[in-house]
């Protein structure tokens, strides 16, 4: 009894499947080795080739520091301002996509007639890369709303597909159970179909965030008002400051990892709450 209690703090680790910790440690070491090798190869190639548009990692690192600490004279802002501009654009596009995709997806999944009507239209636009819309959107919506609309399209379709799929995969017995307890069609929808769809919606959000993020750079490169990280990349390229250009690319990558990572975290939490383990 006493000896059993004394190993209490260790019990958590002992309860883990054998080899799990070793696996994590190994994975971590391999990840570090991979990243270090990548930077080493980059460094070697940069020094060896000595090309203006391939600065070595240390130069990019200091450019990154510079981009955050020094205001660009002609842009009148530093990297924080560009990030804010991109995120704002991204958020607006995302929210619009969400507001359209969720109701439309629920209706298309639940009512056959709506599905028959909207499906052909959706199927025309869905296979087109959102970036193909950049030129015309800039013309129609201008340099603020143009990029926003591109993100809107990028996020819209993965979200829509996920919601429709979620509604269509609702367990029939759950609907039957709700019916036998007196739920009318509206209550079946709000109390069964909608909650059932939430985890699917989160998967759609994660995919949509990834695609939307890819779209923002392309959209901003062509035109953006008030800065933006994508815009910054193109702008520093024009200046010939390739180190700053790479700094912008690093920022885009990190922000992309963060948004998708945060979304996955929320997804996991939500799945637990929704009883999908």
């Amino acid at each position, binding site marked *: 009894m006493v000896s059993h209690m004394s190993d209490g703090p260790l019990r958590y680790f002992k309860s883990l499947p054998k080899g799990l910790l070793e696996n994590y440690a190994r994975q971590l070491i391999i990840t570090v080795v991979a990243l270090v090798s990548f930077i080493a190869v980059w460094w070697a190639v940069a020094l060896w080739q000595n090309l203006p548009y391939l600065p070595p990692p240390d130069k990019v690192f200091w450019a990154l520091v510079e981009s955050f600490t020094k205001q660009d004279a002609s842009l009148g802002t530093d990297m924080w301002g560009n990030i804010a501009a991109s995120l704002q654009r991204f958020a607006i596009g995302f929210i619009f996509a969400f507001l359209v995709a969720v109701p439309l997806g629920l209706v298309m999944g639940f009512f056959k007639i709506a599905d028959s009507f909207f499906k052909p239209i959706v199927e025309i636009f869905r296979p087109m890369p959102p970036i193909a819309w950049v030129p015309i959107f800039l013309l129609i919506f201008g340099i603020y709303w143009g990029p926003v609309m591109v993100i809107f399209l990028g996020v819209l379709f993965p979200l829509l597909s996920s919601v429709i799929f979620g509604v269509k995969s609702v367990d029939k017995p759950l609907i039957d159970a709700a019916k036998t307890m*007196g739920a009318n069609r509206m209550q079946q929808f709000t109390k069964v179909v909608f909650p059932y769809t939430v985890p699917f919606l989160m998967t759609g959000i994660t995919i949509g965030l990834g695609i939307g993020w890819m779209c923002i750079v392309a959209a901003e490169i062509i035109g953006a008002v008030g800065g933006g990280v994508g815009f910054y990349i193109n702008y520093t390229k024009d200046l010939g400051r390739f180190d700053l250009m790479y700094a912008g690319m690093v920022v885009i990558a990190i922000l992309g990892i963060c948004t998708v990572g945060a979304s996955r975290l929320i997804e996991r939490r939500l799945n637990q709450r929704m009883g*999908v383990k």
Partner: protein
Amino acid sequence: MTILSINKLRKTFPSTPEDLVAISEFDLEINEGEFVCILGPSGCGKTTLLRMIAGLDFPTSGEIQINGKRITGPGSDRGMVFQEFALFPWRTVRRNVEFGLEIRGVPKGERKEISDRYIELVGLTGFENTHPYALSGGMKQRVGIARALANNPAILLMDEPFGALDAQTRNLMQKELLRIWSETKKTVVFITHSVDEAVFLADRIVVMTTRPSTIRNIFPISWERPRDRASVEFATLRKQILAQLEKEVQSVPAVP
């Protein structure tokens, strides 16, 4: 007193070259407080029959009446327990049990009182805030039973409720169901393909034929409960019913 009466029930499903007759010439009366098991070879339309009583499916002709009123759809006078549990995975045990009460707009305080009572009845006190995924099969079906009872239905419809459970849990749940039944005095219509289960539980066993299904035989059982599975009379009746079921299965024409 008759609570449920099934008259000249017929159910066909569209098919080619001709419609598939699932149930035909089916007549049955069930008394208030009675525990009726419906037993039949698989694919004989047992579940279709129960779904029609629940109002989830509709007869092609004939009718089902509850307290003299024709069934036209689902209603809170009938509660259903599903083989696959059909619990709402995002709801805790309590909120699953309260589902029907929520639908009917019962105020929160009253809901809690009722759910507390039924959670206790099925022996799940302490698990109110647990989600279904964390429960064993037997516990899930306890939630299923509590959820159906919380609406205070006159009839409890059970569609092979213990079919997905292991043998040990199944026997335990049968005993638990009899306890709950004696405490709530509900009418129970219980679908099963296990002769053993039917003999252990029922006041009356209705043996169905293969398609097109009708009643082959009805066995009333008046023995005291709990019944002894090892007794001679239990074994004799089980053998008798099994023999009938086997004949039914053999009478099915071979599928080419």
